[in-house]
């Protein structure tokens, strides 16, 4: 597992500010470009045009701003972006050049309080993240294939969120943009119109619906009236031709009506662009609510097949995320995706000798540590 946090040690030169820092390992950049980057290098000769140099080991002084990386951040290199808190040198990885699944958390605030939230919301003043993200987006290469925005609930910024999307369209017009939202803000048609006016050609909202039963959906997200606003939001978005993905997390509270939910989607929201049926991540609130949520995927595999095939029959675009190959039936392999972020994906000892690891979604590290199906078995 790759760490996205750590604490660097300031060795010399002026402290860098809080703004995003672009990293490179290329010490031969022309001066015009070099001053836009910090260099990751243990070389003796460091050109002074770079903003700073990051060392993995103590080296002769370079004469420019210099930091020592902690071991967990040794993976940093070309194409990566970080931010350092100048007060305590606490360092966050904002963007990894080697990954095609970069996601930016825009806020920790949320108007939901989902039983299985992997990123438990906090009511904190974190508007500075929006400004930092604006800066980062200006720095990212135009060739960036994909960029995700997540939270919290990103649309709580209101106009700030719309501004960020315009900004993204201006600087990353060719990237695939994916936004995780609970969709409720789009129940307001004026807000939806403002979003549609961004008109990025490849911008999709991932919106969760956990049940066709409004009471059950409201319960899972712990917010009254959520279902109605979310459905309204989706109708508004689709009426303006916006791309929408429905995301369903599968657990004990949602599996009972999963087929009914899929029928509801097929009859009422046939026009959504994608449906993702997702395994539970053993992190955040899930661990606190494990008794209410845990069900062995092996037990629900037939339900998952029925639901997936139903959506397929209706011509809907369906994917299964976060499931291990040995826990799903062969009839839904067409929908199975290796979806777990590269920095989270690993295997357990039961997988030793399995011949189908390359087809497998693998595990969240959190799942390996805390809970996974007792029915994991290697394929011969």
């Amino acid at each position, binding site marked *: 597992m790759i760490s996205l946090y750590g604490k660097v040690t300031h060795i010399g030169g002026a402290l860098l500010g809080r703004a995003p820092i672009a990293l490179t390992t290329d010490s031969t950049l022309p001066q015009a470009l070099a001053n836009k980057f910090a260099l990751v290098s243990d070389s003796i000769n460091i050109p002074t045009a770079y903003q700073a140099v990051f060392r993995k080991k103590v080296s002769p002084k370079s004469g420019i701003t210099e930091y020592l990386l902690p071991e967990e951040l040794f993976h940093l290199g070309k194409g990566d972006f970080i931010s350092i808190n100048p007060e305590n040198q606490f360092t966050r990885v904002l963007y990894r050049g080697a990954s095609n699944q970069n996601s930016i958390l825009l806020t920790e605030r949320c108007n939901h309080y989902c039983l299985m939230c992997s990123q438990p919301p906090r009511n904190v003043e974190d508007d500075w993240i929006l400004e930092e993200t604006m800066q980062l987006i200006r720095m990212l290469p135009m060739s960036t294939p994909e960029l995700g925005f997540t939270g919290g609930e990103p649309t709580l910024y209101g106009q700030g969120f719309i501004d960020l999307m315009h900004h993204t369209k201006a600087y990353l017009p060719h990237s695939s943009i994916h936004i995780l939202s609970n969709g409720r803000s789009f129940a307001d048609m004026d807000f939806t119109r403002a979003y549609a006016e961004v008109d990025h050609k490849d911008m999709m909202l991932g919106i969760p619906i956990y049940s066709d039963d409004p009471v059950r959906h409201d319960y899972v997200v*712990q917010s009254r009236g959520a279902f109605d606003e979310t459905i309204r939001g989706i*109708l508004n978005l689709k009426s303006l031709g916006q791309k929408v993905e429905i995301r369903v997390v599968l657990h004990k509270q949602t599996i009972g009506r999963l087929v009914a939910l899929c029928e509801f989607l097929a009859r009422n929201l046939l026009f959504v662009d994608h449906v993702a049926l997702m395994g539970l991540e053993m992190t955040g609130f899930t661990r606190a*609510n494990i008794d209410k949520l845990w069900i062995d995927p092996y037990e629900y595999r037939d339900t998952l097949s029925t639901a997936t095939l139903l959506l397929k029959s209706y011509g809907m675009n369906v994917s299964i995320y976060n499931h291990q190959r040995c826990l799903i039936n062969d009839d839904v392999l067409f929908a199975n995706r290796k979806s777990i972020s590269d920095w989270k994906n690993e295997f357990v000892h039961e997988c030793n000798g399995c011949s189908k690891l390359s087809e497998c979604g693998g595990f969240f590290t959190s799942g390996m540590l805390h809970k996974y199906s007792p029915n994991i078995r290697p394929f011969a």
Partner: protein
Amino acid sequence: MTKFQVIDFYSQKKQKGYQLLPFKFSELDSDRYLLTNLAGEYITLKKEVMQPFVLHQLNEDSEDYINLRSRQFLHDEHNPIASDLLSLKLRTRFSSLPQFTSLHIFVVSLRCEHSCPYCQVSRQSEDKGSFDMTEEIAEKALQLVFKSPSPMIKIEFQGGEPLLNFEMIKYVVKKALQINQTEKRSLDFVIATNLALIDHEILVFCKDHGIHISTSLDGPEDLHNKNRPRPGKNSYQKTLEGIYLSREILGRDSVSALMTTTESSLGRVKEIIDEYLALDFGGIFLRHLSPYGFAIKTKSYLAYSTDRWLDFYKEGLEYIIELNKKGIDFREYHACTVLTKMLTSNNPGFVDLMSPSGMGIAAVVYNYDGTVHPSDESRMLAEMGDNTFKLGNVFDNTYEEIFSSDALLTPLEESFALSAPMCSDCAYEPYCGSEPVYHHGIHKDFLGRKPSSDFCHRNMTIFKYLITRMEADPYIKNLFLSWANHS
């Protein structure tokens, strides 16, 4: 974690109770009612649940309540969105109505070299040229075709045997393509032919102009030849040769076949299906006879009852389901049409099961003699001397006169199932259609008398049967879902 609320917290409401949304119900079997909502979605309810439901006494935490709310049979404080979703689906179901007529049938000749006793169009013997469409008539008819606002136009050549007047088919196709250079509609052609006269030259013309072939195949050789006599007693052989040659030149997708059930067919549904299987067709349309033309004169129509045909249909459908269980992908097209209406909001565009009726507004017939009819059945009736539905004549009437004539609007309005007695509160109405021509023919009334209507009996039986089967068997539900979405 006391911060999390239990589910009962979210089921609490400020306002008590629930409202019913528009729905209809009929008995499905001795234990259950079938309920359908405005959008044609159904739900089955145990009979003892019905009364508490309509009396607003249903327990709000019960499975039935949750299902009824999810499918928009009731709404409460938790799903005010229900009426928006229902109206969206209702709009979708009727969204093809404003496009108006897309199927334009040209009867280019009433002559035929077959002499089928069940012929429903009252064909004429071969040598009478006065039963052929002329260039003047065709030209006038084409002007009317392109007055239709429909972005999709399908011109179907019928007879008699249309290939007896192939010159006229060529004329119409070339002329239509010429007009379409400026009209830019999606334009398709199909020839309904017994294939006895098909040859390489005709098929090359079809290929060059994107024309499809629809033919008749009643089953195994002895049955087909008995149903469809022609000089030489070789209709079956001619049809098969024609199918092979057509596939060779036009491609497999461009040839389809229809069967008609006669009394001789009744015990032989598996053999008939096997014939279609052996010929590599992806499905079959099990069709009953209609009470028109020679089918009445020769008493073919009365030779079997609706119930005997239904037994034939069910036996065939069960056999097809078994085939699919063995991994053989094969469909029954009538079921596909009905299932599309049951399981989706799409309109399958089948003129016999539309309400408002498809007459005139989905299909129109330009007869060999220049008369215009709102459906194939109506011109069949006209050949029997009943001109009730005749809309006019290509020479004397304008498009506006034809499509706003009382002969069209009155039967459309009077037969509209949503406002027809007995239909308006029948649970199966969203799946059914109105057949003013049929009911006029049998009952002398556009609406018909539903309790004694074979149309009603036949369709209701099939609807019930399809629902009962898919509710009882998950395999069939899944199979029917795929039929519904790819019919």
